């Protein structure tokens, strides 16, 4: 008999984040491709865009949700290689680690760019 002690919340969260992504990714794509003048934002436009705190919150939410969805997906795909229980635990630890690093990197990037932006705006202010 298989180890069936733990329930399958993975699929549940995969679906919930997936449905959430339809909204968040839709917003992300519209904001970056269909609204910005010239199709894509140059540096100045990115800075202006990120000066809106609501946008920053949405982008961070998108970052977290998309990373969870991607990591659960990668885990499911790797499990299909027919892994041993030990390898499965390693994959789980790996996706948690990579996911956490991804989110941290996103935080750092958003912070750096917003900070640069506010410094730049302060310098350029008359």
């Amino acid at each position, binding site marked *: 008999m298989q180890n069936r002690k733990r329930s399958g919340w993975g699929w549940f969260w995969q*679906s919930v984040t997936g449905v959430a992504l339809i909204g968040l990714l839709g917003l992300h794509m519209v904001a970056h491709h269909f609204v910005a003048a010239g199709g894509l934002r140059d540096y100045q436009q990115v800075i202006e865009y990120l000066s809106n705190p609501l946008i920053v919150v949405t982008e961070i939410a998108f970052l977290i949700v998309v990373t969870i969805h991607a990591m659960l997906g990668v885990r499911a795909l790797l499990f299909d290689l027919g892994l041993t229980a030990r390898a499965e635990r390693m994959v789980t630890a790996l996706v948690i680690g990579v996911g956490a690093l991804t989110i941290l990197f996103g935080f750092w990037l958003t912070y750096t760019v917003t900070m640069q932006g506010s410094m730049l705006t302060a310098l350029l202010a008359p």
Partner: protein
Amino acid sequence: MNLYRPDLKRFRFLRWFDFRSWRLGMIAYILNRVTAIGLVLYLYIHLAVLTMLAQGPSSWDPFIRIARAPWFLALDVLLLAGMLIHGLNGLRIALTGFGIGVRGQKPLFVALMIVAAVALIAGALKIFAG
């Protein structure tokens, strides 16, 4: 080649690529995997590219000029196609998994892919129009 021959057991990981029949549910399953892998790769390419933002306008703006070239915009259309296929088919998987539309999963797939196609055409026009 038969991947299920007992002497090929040590290559069992190759069964991952066994796409079997080409029935509708199987096609949806294959599309979902292929787009999933593409989108995960893109996520990391995207993050790597965005790192240029941290290096300031001297790094970012030349890139954006390339990214506004038509051949680069074609890649954006490809990305949009992946997102629409994965997202809308994913919606079907989520709905049926919660017991909604189970008996109608095939028409649901066809309908969602028509929505994807229409959205892709509209999106492509918008991307190229700027």
